[in-house]
């Protein structure tokens, strides 16, 4: 399949409240681990440059859904995906798709910070180097830019050569965010990014997300409903059905989900009656 022309970032449509373009369109997604169906018939339109939260009780497949966006599920042996996921109109799941490029366009931040045992500089420069950027000054400007975008620059600018493991957990997570930003993704996936962190680091990450959404489409999985309510523009509620497959129950603006949910199950979940 031929690659479409990259949307240049300098042509930047100003957002108007209510003008929500679809960045990622999921149609009829089902994910199987061997014979077991983990996700059933998921339909979801993720809006560009907004924060979309995916919530639901434990084990309902939130992470599986998230990992479908950038085909990280491929790494699990025996995993099979049916349906389509359209990223700017191209089906990510089609066999001709270049997975490596998909993963560059759709970045991921994991639940536990996982920096490489390299220097802070080399952690952030890892991605650009993969893509053939070796000029030192180019790399330096990319690293600086990425660390500034993840609100870590001031704390580490004097110790870029120290190991990525030598900083605190909250800083490591922001390092991982910077690392993901360095390859200029269009979408950023976050799998419970603050659940392993202390409250202050969590707050910093949430503030960061508000900054980042100006430039990136963000999809976040969280089991913390207050966080979803604080941070996201749109929320998707998931639950498992009788066959233990995850399904999308309701998807709407966050305000609506948390104040006037349409589905009884959503209302039960967000008011804490279970889950």
């Amino acid at each position, binding site marked *: 399949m031929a*690659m479409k022309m*990259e949307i240049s970032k300098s042509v930047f449509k100003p957002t108007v409240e209510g003008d929500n373009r679809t960045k990622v369109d999921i149609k009829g997604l089902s994910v199987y681990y061997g014979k077991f169906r983990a996700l059933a018939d998921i339909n979801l339109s993720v809006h560009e440059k907004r924060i979309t939260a995916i919530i639901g009780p434990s084990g309902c497949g939130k992470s599986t859904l998230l990992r479908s966006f950038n085909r990280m599920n491929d790494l699990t042996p025996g995993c099979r995906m049916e349906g389509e996921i359209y990223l700017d109109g191209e089906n990510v799941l089609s066999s001709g798709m270049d997975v490596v*490029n998909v993963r560059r366009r759709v970045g991921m931040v994991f639940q536990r910070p996982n920096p490489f045992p390299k220097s802070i500089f080399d952690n952030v420069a890892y991605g650009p180097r993969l*893509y*053939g950027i070796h000029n030192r000054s*180019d790399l330096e400007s990319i690293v600086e*830019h990425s660390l500034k975008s993840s609100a870590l620059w001031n704390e580490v600018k004097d110790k870029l050569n120290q190991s990525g493991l030598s900083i605190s957990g909250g800083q490591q997570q922001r390092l991982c965010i910077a690392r993901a930003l360095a390859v*200029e993704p269009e979408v950023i996936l976050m799998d419970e990014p603050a659940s392993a962190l202390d409250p202050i680091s969590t707050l910093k990450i949430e503030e960061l997300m508000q900054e980042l959404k100006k430039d990136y489409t963000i999809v976040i999985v969280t089991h913390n409903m207050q966080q979803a309510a604080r941070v996201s523009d749109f929320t998707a509620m998931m639950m498992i059905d009788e066959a233990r497959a995850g399904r999308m129950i309701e998807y709407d603006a966050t305000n609506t989900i948390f104040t006037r949910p349409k589905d009884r199950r959503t209302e039960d979940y967000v008011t804490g009656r279970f889950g």
Partner: protein
Amino acid sequence: MSNFSELMNRNRVRWARQRKIANAVMLTLTGLVTVLALIPLFWIIGYVIIQGGQNINLDFFIHMPTPLGVAGGGVLSAIEGTLVVTFLAAIFAIPPGVLAAFYAARYPSTPLGVALRFSTDVLSGVPSIVVGLFAYAVIVVPMRHYSGLAGGAALAVLMLPTIIRTTEEMLKLVPGTLREASLGLGAPEWKTSLSVLFPAASSGIITGFLLALARASGETAPLLMTALGNERFDIAQIIRSGIQSHMNVFQVFWRIINQPVDSLPLALWKYAQQPYPERVKLAWAVALVLVLFVLIINVSSRVWIQNRSRRMKG
């Protein structure tokens, strides 16, 4: 924003293809290298089976070596010698090895435990020929002659670290709750160890013995200066003459181990380097016996372990 996009877009398509090709090439290379490394395995085994198989017959197993040119010779002396040295090695190595392992598993952090683990590591790294020198100095020199006893002792030193390590690991795998249950019932420490822990770990331990024995039976270097090799080693004859001279069991036993003995690897070493084709053929036959022995023990002990762990998982 954008250094990265511009820089990357410049040669994006060509770069992406290069990365893909490099990836495919290197990954294929690792597979090829694995195949490459296994070629000698199959080559050696195949050759030994073919060459050795041609030259193996009943005479091989039940007759003593005959002088050159006389047909019907075998390697009985080497087979008997191998049995003697391996038996001695097992007796010398297994009891102390198991006991030391009990200590190491129970008290890993005492000074003695740490020193024990260090010594085991060092011993496992000592080259086999150096162990032979040690046995020479300690047994052959004071006794003033080579003997199967010295050979067995040398092999025991080689087996000891393996036995300690495997036994220790198997003991550690026994759930701590088993030990606590036994002690809680009032059983003393020693009884717990012998009647509860040891049986629970026994299949793994025995497998460890067998593997160590298989290794020891293939060793040559330490025997060069201890058992020395002895083409006239004939247990049946020793027993017969012992009965005639009215010796008791112990004296006969002593006579068996107190003289130079032959062994299969030693015979192989000797025959391989002789310029006579019949001897070389014998060498291949000996190689076949050794390889089959090693293969059978290795494969069957692994199969046993697999079965056991499958059964334990329910």
